[in-house]
């Protein structure tokens, strides 16, 4: 191993650059060295942009005055490979885009750069963000830094593994049904999915447009607040981005949660379809202990009912696949990306499409395109898509009702800790069912954060999730930060650092 990171949070790195204790180039060199040392075993990164990062860090050092007060000066960041980066290959972990180099940056990426961040590379994920284990990557799985034989979760598994392994203090991910929060939980870090519309989706390779949201993976809640300050806000290039003003999210982190009301959906937790085995015993235990910690800080626990939440997984897989089947129609081999080789015996246009899409997409992506195509087909649209949208409204209404009585709803992020690579590959349904606690926030467009809440006896991290009202990131961040101050789970480092 190379020199251990003395202090790996955004806040500390930023401060060391501001004070002149360390240069952006020094930080960048050390970061790249750690990536070189650790990543062969983890495979968190698809692409490491070492030269570009060093050049950028040198620019920041050269122009110190200009960058002195920028919020992320010199902070290394990793970007999920489904976010467009100008001039840097953006694959979405698909053979379809193996050689695709976007001519533009995603808005969130551009905002990080404007804040002084240094992008060090693009992280692995499930193909087009479809999956919960990062095993659906066309370029091989990412491994969990806490146990290399296990998945880091997904789909933002590369981003989560990179942050957990202290390869970068900040990674961007995308969350359509839990793709930031679940890997954050399985890797023992903080994952924030903001309110739908809070962060521009421009430049995010769309999976399910009405559910997708870009967010952060960080070591601490405070770092998540710093990152959100930078990436949140209206964007004229995204018609679904919200015009609401962006507060200083770090100001909400007062540590004072006295009087806060935290909802616990106990009926869902006891009878929910959390896979055949329900919620893992150790996960359930850690969750209960965490609730006690909130109570002892002065929060009130309130039982809430979310009667339609048990349908959330079914609704999610109808809506998400329908939108995916549409969003992925553009990958046709005509303008960019993979095109099946010319077949002299069959050069018809239809055949080119079929062979391109058969060869360019992996099995999970094809499964979802087929499901979604079926869901939108004439004669099935009403029974599936329309019905799913109606139930989606009911699920969102459940939360609205709950938020009349509570300030946030707490649940485990994932019913189980990190699972072995290969265990669920053959059983996609089991994989889908494990999304039970995360998909509702996407269906309702609600902000949600996953924060570490302990470890199993075997040393695997466990995550706690807090879901809040639309645009009420300050409250979920304040609650999570207060809990973090008492527990400091994030300070434990994984074996593979």
């Amino acid at each position, binding site marked *: 191993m190379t020199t251990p990171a003395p202090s790996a949070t955004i806040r500390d790195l930023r401060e060391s650059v501001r004070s002149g204790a360390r240069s952006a180039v020094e930080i960048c060199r050390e970061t790249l060295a750690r990536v070189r040392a650790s990543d062969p075993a983890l495979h968190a990164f698809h692409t490491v942009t070492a030269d570009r990062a060093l050049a950028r860090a040198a620019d920041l050092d050269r122009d110190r005055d200009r960058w002195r007060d920028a919020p992320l000066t010199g902070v290394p960041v990793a970007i999920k490979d489904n976010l467009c980066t100008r001039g840097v290959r953006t694959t979405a972990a698909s053979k379809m885009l193996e050689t695709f180099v976007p001519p*533009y940056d995603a808005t969130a990426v551009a905002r990080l750069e404007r804040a002084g961040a240094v992008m060090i590379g693009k992280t692995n994920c499930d193909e087009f963000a479809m999956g919960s284990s990062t095993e659906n990557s066309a370029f091989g799985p990412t491994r969990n830094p806490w146990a290399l034989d296990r998945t880091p979760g997904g789909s933002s598994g590369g981003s989560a593994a990179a942050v957990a392994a202290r390869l970068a203090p900040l990674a961007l991910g995308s969350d359509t049904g839990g793709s930031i929060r679940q890997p954050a939980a399985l890797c023992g870090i903080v994952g924030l999915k903001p309110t739908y519309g809070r962060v521009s989706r421009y430049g995010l390779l769309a999976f399910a447009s009405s559910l997708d949201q870009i967010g952060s993976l960080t070591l601490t809640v405070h770092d998540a607040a710093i990152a959100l300050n930078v990436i949140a806000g209206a964007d004229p290039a995204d018609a679904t981005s919200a015009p609401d003003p962006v507060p200083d999210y770090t100001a909400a982190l007062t540590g004072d949660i006295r009087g806060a009301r935290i909802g616990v959906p106990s009926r869902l937790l006891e009878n929910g379809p959390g896979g055949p085995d329900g919620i893992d015993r150790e996960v359930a235990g850690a969750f209960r202990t965490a609730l006690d910690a909130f109570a002892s800080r002065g929060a009130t626990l309130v039982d809430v009912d979310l009667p339609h939440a048990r349908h959330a997984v079914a609704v999610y897989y109808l809506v998400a696949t329908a939108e995916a089947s*549409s969003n992925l129609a553009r990958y046709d081999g005509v*303008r960019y990306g993979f095109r099946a080789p010319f077949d002299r015996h069959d050069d018809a246009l239809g055949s080119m499409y079929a062979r391109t899409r058969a060869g360019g997409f992996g099995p999970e992506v094809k499964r979802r395109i087929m499901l979604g195509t079926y869901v939108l087909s004439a004669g099935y649209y009403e029974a599936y898509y329309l019905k799913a949208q109606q139930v989606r409204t009911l699920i969102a209404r459940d939360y609205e009702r709950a938020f009349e009585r509570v300030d946030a709803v707490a649940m485990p992020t994932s019913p189980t800790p990190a699972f072995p690579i290969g265990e669920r590959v053959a059983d996609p349904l089991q994989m889908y069912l494990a999304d039970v606690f995360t998909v509702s926030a996407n269906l309702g467009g609600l902000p949600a954060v996953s924060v570490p809440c302990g470890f199993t006896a075997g040393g695997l991290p466990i995550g706690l999730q807090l879901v809040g009202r639309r645009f009420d990131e300050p409250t979920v961040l304040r609650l999570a930060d207060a809990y973090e101050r008492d527990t400091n789970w994030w300070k434990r480092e994984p074996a593979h650092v």
Partner: protein
Amino acid sequence: MIGLEIHAHLLTASKIFCGCGTSFGAPPNTCVCPVCLGLPGALPVLNHAAVDLAIRAALALGCTVHETSVFARKHYFYPDLAKGYQISQYDCPLATGGALAATRIHRVHLEEDAGKSLHDGFPDSDRKTYVDFNRSGVPLIEIVTEPDLRSASDAAGFFSRLRSMLVWLGVNDGNMEEGSLRCDANVSVRRAGGALGTKAEIKNLNSFRFLQKALEYEIERQIGVLKGGGRVTQETRLWDAASGVTASMRSKEEAHDYRYFPEPDLPPLVVDAARLGSIRAAMPELPEARRARFIAQHALPEYDAGQLVESRALADYYEHVVRAGAPAKAASNWIMGELARVLKDRGADITAPPVSAAALAGLIALVEQGRISGSIAKHVFDTMVASGRTSDDIVQAEDLAQIDDEPRLVALIGDVLAAHPGPVAQYREGKTATFGFLVGQVMRASAGKANPTRVNELLRRALEA
């Protein structure tokens, strides 16, 4: 029974979902960006100038513009369709339920155009098709009529009238050759009073003549099928202008399942009453209203008024001439007469007038003031067209002013009477028909400049003296 679906490009400077330009004829793939190329991660943002034009058209067609309409994705695979879907509107269109003349309008909705496949014109066109995405994302309205048209000529007449209306509104340039206005037709036949027959959709009807010929052909074809004991199949047919027939393109079974669903990248389009009000207020006066006003306010005959509102540019020109002082009827006569003749000879239209409205008014004023005669005025007009000079200039330079001066006219008359003793004698014997001949001779002697009223008066006095 015929219903039409008309696609009209909207005359916006930029595309409907991105900032790229819309001008026709730019080199291929030069007006493109990540959005209209369907690059990964690009998102559409609605151009509200397109919405305003679409609303203007919908209001002019008497439609109800809905407060909320919804964009939807229409899916099919084709190389010139960048995203694999077209952003259109489906079950919640912008506007419904209007009429133009006696034909009811079913709906008007907004959508984006696709790119263009280029099948020929390249050295390797026998093996390859190229795609130009300049047109991808150009804003369109689709106007769908009810099946109210009863014959091919009805349909062509309606299409022509709709085209004039769209051009009048400044919504569309009316250019069918460049594809900025396109038409498909749904046709079915039935016995008088019988139930509706099965319809066929005919595509590629991009001129009035093709529309009419294709419909005539298709109606005969369907009647032939039914008379032969067959059944018309529901299908899409393509008009082949070269052979003058329609041919089956795809059957109902092969029809696309477009898998419409609401476009999640765009919020519903909300048009509030204030916006409708301001579009309505900024709406140009419509042809029918203008025609009525020309009759009522300018006292023009119905025929003149109808001709002058054939296009907004023509009606505007006419009003400019009147506003510059010309009497209404005289202005109308000049525009429908001399000006129309020159335009026709030049193959031009009134958007590039050969003589400005002010200049024409000046010429008319000279006639009205009696400074030149009507026939001299035509000569002056031709000279104005050829030289660009003003009428005053020409009259002065060519000494064309009317001769009113009595001694000069009397002298002219004296010369004519002396030169034509025969007709003079005949007149005095009571054959007064020779009077006209003598007037003509005086006019000729004055090179047309003599004031004809004065000539009449003085000639009669001279003959009866």
